[in-house]
């Protein structure tokens, strides 16, 4: 099995992978986290992007303003004293209510389109490229573990080859048994299963481990530092 030997002159060069792949992977992970933390602001961004200058939103805002002024006027005048004006305003208000409803529906559909646009752009710019990178470079080794004796063979193979190893290892065992009876070497040659001395961590496994560790750190920080303290409801009831 071909793998690159780590060089010894500097610590950073202990990473066997090309720098751009590692940097791109880190950028994708960071971008994902940023989007996760700013999810509360996504609606505001969508609003600013789609509503600011659209004619439908402007017309909606204008009609809403007109409706509000008419309502204020109607409240200020007496229905009995200025009956004609009051009823005229009322008729206008009814008509405006219908128009406002229509325009609101248009604005909401635009908002929906904006949300869809954000979702699609996230898919195209983040999710798909990240997936592509993982599929293309996922099997490359990021760094080597200090020793091959740290983990059992099954885990060593998984770190080195990815999750596929867990499926291929039992298959290889079965085939090697079969090979002693029938010649199935044409199959076993194609199955490259880890068996080498040095154990490395592949990109796919490293990204999985990184996201898991980040999630744990988030959980600890959110719970212990940022979480609000709750009082025991039984004790609180007794105090009262």
């Amino acid at each position, binding site marked *: 099995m071909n793998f690159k030997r780590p060089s010894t002159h500097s610590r950073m060069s202990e990473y066997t992978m090309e720098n751009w792949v590692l940097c791109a992977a880190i950028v994708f992970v960071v971008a994902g986290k940023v989007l996760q933390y700013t999810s509360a602001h996504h609606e505001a961004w969508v609003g600013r992007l789609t509503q600011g200058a659209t004619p439908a939103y402007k017309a909606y805002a204008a009609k809403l303003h007109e409706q509000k002024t008419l309502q204020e006027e109607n409240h200020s005048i007496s229905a009995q004293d200025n009956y004609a004006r009051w009823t005229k305003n009322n008729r206008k208000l009814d008509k405006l209510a219908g128009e406002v409803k229509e325009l609101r529906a248009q604005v909401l559909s635009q908002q929906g389109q904006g949300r869809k646009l954000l979702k699609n752009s996230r898919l195209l710019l983040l999710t798909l490229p990240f997936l592509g990178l993982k599929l293309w470079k996922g099997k490359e080794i990021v760094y080597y573990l200090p020793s091959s004796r740290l983990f059992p063979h099954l885990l060593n193979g998984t770190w080195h080859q990815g999750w596929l190893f867990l499926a291929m290892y039992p298959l290889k065992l079965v085939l090697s048994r079969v090979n002693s009876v029938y010649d199935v070497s044409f199959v076993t040659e194609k199955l490259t299963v880890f068996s080498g001395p040095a154990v490395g961590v592949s990109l796919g496994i490293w990204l999985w481990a990184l996201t*898991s560790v980040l999630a*744990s750190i988030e959980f600890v920080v959110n719970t212990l530092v940022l979480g609000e303290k709750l009082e025991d409801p039984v004790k609180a009831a007794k105090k009262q």
Partner: protein
Amino acid sequence: MSTLTEAEKRKLLRERRQKKFANGGASSRLNKITGQSDSHLNTDSPLDNPKNEPVLESVPVAKSAPIAETNEVEQPQTTTESENDPQVQLLKQLASMQNEGADSTPDLFSLLGSMQKGADGKEGVDPVMEAPVDPVLLNYHNYLVNRLKAWTILLKWIILLPYLYVITRGAETNICPSSGPLGNLCDPSNFFMVFTSFEIVATSVYYQKLQTIEKNNKVNTLDSNSKIIKIVSMVPEGLLPITNIKGKVVLLMQYWDVLSVFIGDVCLVLIAFGLLKAL
């Protein structure tokens, strides 16, 4: 009498009435009802009688007299008696069951089982889990469980990171002696065994603390929070060819909980090795 006209009849009646009033006979009917004159009427009022409430009493309440007014009072009393009878019968049956259990098989477990059936009824299986949990208490319980989990993760990592440093840089920095217990600890071949033992100890301590919290708050964390358990508990018993499906799912989820904690720590180990290589 038929020869008298209507007017004459009315006049006759009026005269008789006046005579009666003059004699003081008008109050006789009233006195009969209230019992001031010698009367055979029953004057007991249903309001005076507390035994009309549905309690376990089979003592007959009132003497029955064939008078229309008292019949209505009688009927609720007879119905309570009829209600009381089944309850009395049920208690008698339960008492006999207990006695039978004691006589036929002197088995503690069957006694406990029958007592529990008598006492709790349907809730005999899991009284804590069947009762709905107060949302405020559940919130507080989840808060405590999350804090326990976070502290466990933090403390485990604080212990693991120096150990990982020693494993990777031990040879270079001369921390590890070549022999002795510390030397064995620093040997990479022993790493997985030490790591797994540490995980087992930490997980046992965590589960002990979790059970203390669950006992204090009387809340089962998985039962109350897991959507999967809620869905599975709605599946009726005979639908799938697996008995006690909820119990098995709960067990599986507990094992998965332990495994996910272990996997989380293994991920830390991998990342820490990478960082220690870079730094």
